[in-house]
């Protein structure tokens, strides 16, 4: 049988290359000026976070007590703080802290959220209900309160335990109580960050599971594993990318908020949050101590949020037109 192709010329021209949805989205993203600006800032900050120690003129810990609380100058771009430390170097190092916290926390939250959410959405039933109970429960408690409670109640006993272990074993690992800080900061932030990812992925999986192309895949006889890998995950991942981009910015703000409250990364490790907290006490006399970290934190948050918006428009073109 030879069927003559009918009415086929209208939509696809011979000379145009095929466009996958990913490439299409990338082109749409590049046309969005704000998103490109956001992406540029994010890349710059990431570069600073990785190569920061080689970029700064001073060590972030070096105290120059002869040059305390100096205003910004050529020697100290953002001035110096009350211990004579270079604020620019500390902000640069704070970028590393912010990225480490944001990436570690978001990674943990995404792994937990995607695994639980995808399984809840795909299998349903009792497992789904239990996972959703946990997300609802976690989301019903105010974030800051939960983190403060965890830190306040666990920090002292954990530190004491570490010291006791050090006395008993003389293993140098136990002397570094910074691990307790990391564990508590990362752990408590991940704990409050995973439920939105779980909900998002579950909702995606639920909606995709019922689409005709998934039923068609079942009718072809494909295995559950293939259907998950080739059909459900690639179609569920778009909103997750958007959410992760926005989530990185949120995690940086959270970290700063916790440092500000004194439950985050401990001094002398610089973080934008503890710098803001320190600067706030003296802002009437030395405004640069507050302005520098606050401006960089603001810049980072805005950049991530523009990038997230741009990704959203690029990956869900129907919503934006």
């Amino acid at each position, binding site marked *: 049988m030879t069927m003559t192709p009918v*009415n086929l010329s209208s*939509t696809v021209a011979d000379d145009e290359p095929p466009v996958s*949805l990913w490439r299409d989205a990338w082109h749409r993203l590049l046309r969005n000026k704000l998103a490109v600006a956001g992406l540029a800032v994010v890349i710059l900050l990431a570069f600073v976070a990785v190569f920061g120690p080689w970029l700064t003129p001073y060590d972030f810990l070096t105290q120059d007590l002869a040059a305390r609380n100096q205003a910004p100058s050529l020697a100290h771009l953002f001035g110096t703080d009350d211990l004579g430390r270079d604020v620019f170097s500390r902000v640069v190092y704070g970028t590393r802290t912010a990225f480490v916290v944001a990436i570690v926390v978001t990674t943990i939250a995404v792994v937990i959220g995607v695994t639980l959410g995808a399984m809840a959405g795909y299998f349903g039933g009792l497992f789904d209900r239990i996972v959703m109970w946990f997300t609802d429960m976690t989301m019903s408690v105010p974030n800051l309160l939960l983190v403060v409670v965890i830190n306040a109640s666990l920090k002292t006993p954990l530190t004491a335990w570490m010291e006791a272990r050090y006395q008993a074993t003389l293993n140098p690992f136990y002397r570094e109580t910074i691990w307790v800080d990391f564990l508590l900061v990362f752990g408590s932030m991940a704990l409050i960050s995973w439920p939105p990812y779980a909900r998002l992925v579950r909702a995606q999986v639920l909606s995709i599971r019922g689409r005709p*192309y998934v039923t068609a895949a*079942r009718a072809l006889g494909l295995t559950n594993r*293939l259907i998950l890998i080739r059909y459900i995950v690639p179609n569920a991942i778009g909103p997750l990318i958007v959410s992760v981009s926005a989530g990185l910015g949120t995690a940086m703000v959270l970290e700063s908020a916790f440092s500000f409250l004194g439950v985050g990364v401990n001094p002398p490790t610089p973080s934008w949050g503890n710098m803001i907290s320190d600067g706030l006490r003296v802002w009437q006399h030395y405004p640069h101590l507050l302005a520098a970290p606050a401006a960089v934190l603001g810049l980072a948050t805005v950049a991530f949020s523009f990038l997230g918006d741009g990704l959203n428009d690029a990956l869900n073109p129907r919503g934006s037109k």
Partner: protein
Amino acid sequence: MAAEPLIKVENLVKHFVVRLGAFGERGATVHAVDDVNFDIFAGETLSLVGESGCGKSTTGFTLLNLQKATSGKVIFQGENIVSLDEKRMRPYRRELQIVFQDPYSTLNPRMTIGEVVGEPILFHKLATKAELPEKVTRLLADVGLPARFASRYPHELSGGQRQRVAIARALACQPKFIVCDEAISALDVSVQAQIINLLLDLQEKYGLTYLFIAHDLAVVRHISDRVGVMYLGRLAELATREQLFSNPLHPYTRALLSAVPEADPELEKTRQRQILVGDVPSPLAPPAGCRFHTRCPIAMDKCRAVVPEWREVVPGHHVACHAVEVGAAG
């Protein structure tokens, strides 16, 4: 028509349990398909018609074991396929395919047309990787698409083109039987005609058997060998096309057929419309007795109490109605 049916559907039932109330404390049962019996013969086109929600699509899905049947049997190659789990169902999946209504959601947006059509070929080991491009080209040609479409993504195609791809994907399995679930309802009328002709050509070329689920009686009349009429989850009537259109026995079939406009204006003038009063009752609480009695113009007391038996009143003509005498078809 071959005497031995390709597929035998026996007392097929599909109920959905839904939870109602704020805490899901009340359970209710949707009687989507109830006690449906029919045979599908090799090489024929059997159409199922009825209004939305009458269970015709659910019948198609349940028959393919895409939804678990509540009870009943579907016999294919001596096996009751609706009792099989997914693993034991797999060899039959290749032979029993489906084409869906909505061409816009029937293809995975992340896969090229070549991948869509090639996937079942590789999965069921119907060709080697080296033979695949040629196979895909041949399948695309079968459905009237040029080979260059293989590298395209679904969103670059029109609705009619996507439906052709969906048909090529079903064909890639080398099936015996295809359920066309409203496969043309979402398309433009001109494209509908093309797809119908394509389906008929492919049937001839590959000896396919179709279960054609539709609500457009003009189309059904054009392509079917036999037609089944469903109402509220039950089959009301099943007959050859000639029998059904020239001598409808069930009052619901008569009302349905009277709604089809005649192309000839002279005939159209004399057409008697039989308008049913009331709405279709909820499948959550279907009426006792004959499900059609609430709207039937000739309902009797018996219809309200006793479910009419599914009878073959003349050879090849089945009906479920108390008012029809055996031999009444004449």
